[in-house]
C-alpha cells in the first residue's frame, strides 16, 4: 500500500492545544485530527439538543466550518470544549429558532438512535417509546429553555458553565432550567408517560 512503511514507534497523541496551534498555522492534518477527536461528542450533543432531525449532518458541517474559522481567533481563554459547546449550541439554537414548525419524530432516525444506544431487543421498544416521549416533550419547549435544560440536566454542566456557553448569568440559566422542568413535567403527565 502506498506510503505504508514500518515504524519503530507509534506516534504520541497531540494535545488539543497542539492541534489548535497546528490549525492556526494552517495544518489541515491538525484540523482533521481535531475533527475526528471531537466530532463524536459534538454529534451526541447535537442529537440531544435537536432530536431526530435528519439535518444533523448538515448542522455538523456548519459547526465545524465555524470551528475552523473560529480557531484563527481562538486564544485559549476558554477551553476547547467550551469553544465547541458554544458553537454547537449556537447552531442548534439557531436551528430551533428558525424551524419551529410542526415538530416530527423521524422514525428511521429514531431506529438508528435506538441501534446506537445498543439496546437489547427486549428493551428496544421501551427505549424507542422513551425517546419518542422525550423528544416530543422537548419539542414543546422554547429553544432557550430546551438548550439550558439539555446542557444542565442531561450534559451535566454546572449553571456557571452553562451560563458561560450561553453568554448569560447562572441565575438566568437556573430559571430556564427550572421552568423547562416544570413544563416537561406537565407535558409528560399529559402524554401519559409519568407514573
Amino acid at each position, binding site marked *: *500500500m*502506498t*506510503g*505504508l*512503511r*514500518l*515504524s519503530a514507534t*507509534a*506516534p*504520541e*497523541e*497531540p494535545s488539543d492545544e497542539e492541534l489548535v496551534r497546528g490549525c492556526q498555522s*494552517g495544518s*489541515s492534518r491538525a484540523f*482533521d*485530527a481535531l*475533527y*475526528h477527536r471531537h*466530532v*463524536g*461528542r459534538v454529534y*451526541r450533543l447535537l*442529537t*440531544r439538543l435537536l432530536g431526530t432531525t435528519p439535518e444533523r*449532518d*448538515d448542522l455538523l*458541517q456548519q459547526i*465545524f*466550518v465555524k470551528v*475552523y*474559522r473560529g480557531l484563527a481567533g481562538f486564544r485559549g481563554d476558554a477551553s476547547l*470544549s467550551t469553544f*465547541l*459547546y458554544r458553537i454547537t449550541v449556537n447552531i442548534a439554537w439557531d436551528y430551533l429558532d428558525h424551524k419551529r414548525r410542526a415538530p416530527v419524530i423521524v422514525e428511521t432516525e429514531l431506529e*438508528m*438512535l435506538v441501534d*446506537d*444506544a*445498543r*439496546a437489547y431487543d427486549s428493551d428496544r421498544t421501551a*427505549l424507542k417509546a422513551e*425517546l419518542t416521549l*422525550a423528544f416530543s*416533550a422537548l419539542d414543546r419547549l422554547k429553544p432557550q429553555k430546551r438548550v439550558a435544560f*439539555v446542557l*444542565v*440536566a*442531561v*450534559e*451535566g454542566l*454546572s449553571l456557571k458553565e452553562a451560563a458561560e456557553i450561553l453568554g448569560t448569568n447562572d441565575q438566568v440559566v*437556573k430559571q430556564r*432550567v427550572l421552568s*423547562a*422542568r416544570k413544563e*416537561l*413535567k*406537565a407535558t*409528560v*403527565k399529559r402524554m401519559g408517560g409519568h407514573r
Partner: protein
Amino acid sequence: MKRPEPNDIDQFGGESGDEKVVAALRRLDPTLTDVPRARVLARVWGVVNEGDALAEQPQVPRPSGVSSLASRTRQAWGWTVGSAAAVAILLSWPSRVPVDRPLAIEEPAPTRSGATQEPPAIDSSASEPIALFLAGRSATTATARGVLASAPGGVQRARFALGGELALGDSGRLEVVAHEPKQVILRLSQGRLAMHYENRTGKTLVIETNDARVVVIGTTFVVDSSSGHSTRVSVIEGKVRVDVNGVGARIDAGESLVVGHRGRKAPVGARARESFSWIEGAKALPVAERPAERVPFAKATSPSAVPEAPAGNPRERFEGLYRRAEDAMKQKLPGEARLLLNAALASDPTSPEADAALFDLVRLSAASGDLEGTTRDAERLVADRPLSPFAAPARFIACRTSFERAPPETARACLRAYLRDHPGSAHDADALALLVVIASRLGDCSDARKQATLYLTRHPSGAFAADAARSAAATCESL
C-alpha cells in the same frame, strides 16, 4: 465535554417530572460511522476552501471535498455569472482587444489563489511512443519513431488508450509529447485529427499544433492543422479550450474557430464534419490496451458489463451512476454496486465525490473478504486523493482486512504505518488493539506490552482497555 454528573440544579430542583426525558437522553449515544463522518469533513473542507478563495487568503493545500448544497448553489451562480461575463466579453471582443492578438477571447482562468493559471510545463523527457496509447490501427502506414502518421489520402484510425477514438488524415503526424499524472500532451505537427476523448482517467488531453494549444475538456472535436492553413478547431460535442500565446478561448459544441482570425467563431463546417465521420470507423476497432501501470483508473471492463450511463455532462453522469450504486448497496447487491461505482469513476474521475466512490469500493471489497481488492482499492484512493478524508478510513479498512486474512507481520506493518501517518484518527484505538492482538499471536512480549501501554495511555476508557493489559500480561507469562 464531561460525562453527566450531579450539578447544583439538582439541589434546588425539587420534585420534577422530567426524569424520563433525562434518562432517555442520557442513554443516547449516536455514532457517526466512517462514511458520514468522512463526508461531513469533506464538506467542511469544501466550504472552507471556497471561503478561503473568496477571501483571497493565503492557502495551504486542502483536500478536495464535496461541497454542501448551499455551496453548490453558490458555485452554480458563480458559473452562471462567470459564463455571462465571458459571453459579454466575447460579444464585445473586436473592439476591446489589441489588433496584434491573433486570438483573444478571455483571460486565462484565475486559480483559487487568485493567480492566473500558467500552462503546465511540458517535460519532453516524459514523451513516449504513441503506439503505447493506441490499438487497432487501421491504415497501412505504421508508426515510426513514436509518431503516428497517415499517408496522403489515407486515414489512420485507432482507439485511444485513455478513452475514445481518433482518426488522423491529410498526411497527418501525431506524437506524444508528454504523459504526466494530470495530462497527456499530443502534438499534431500537420494534418487533421478528429477525436472523441472520453477522459476515463481524469487526465486532461492537450493537443498542440504549430500555432495553438487545444485543451480538451470533452468530448468530440477536430483539429485541422493542414499545411498552409492556420489551425482550425471544431467541436462536435462538449467543449475545448484553445490557448494561443497564453490567451484562451472556449469553443462549445457546434462551433469552430480559426486561429489568427481574431477569435471569431463560426458554425462547424463540412470539412470538420467529414473528419468527424472518420471516427466512426475507429469505433469498430478493438478496445485499446492502456499503457501499463500509468493509469490509475485503467480497469478494463467488458463493454457488456458497463452500466448504461445516464445522459448529461460527466458530472451529472457521475452523480446519476453514484446514486444508483448507493441504491444497489442498500439493496445488498455488491456486484452491481461495484460495476456502477467503477462506471461512475470512469465517467468523471475528477468528481468531488470520486473519493467517496473509491471508499465505497474499498468497503465492498472488504465486506466480501477480498484482501487483494481491498488493498488495491485503498491504494487507488490514497494514491489519487492522498488528502481525502476517506484516505485514513480506507487505509484502516485495508489494514483490518489484512489482519483478518494476511500473515500477522503484514498486518502489523500496515497498522504501524497507519498509526504513523494518521495520528489521532478515528481508528486509533482499534489499530492499537489489533497491534496488541498481533503481538500476542506472535508471542512478542515486548511489543505486546508496548502497544498495550500505548492503548491504555491514549484510550484509558476504551473498549479494549481491560483486554489490552490482560493480553500483554498473558503473552509475557507464556514465554
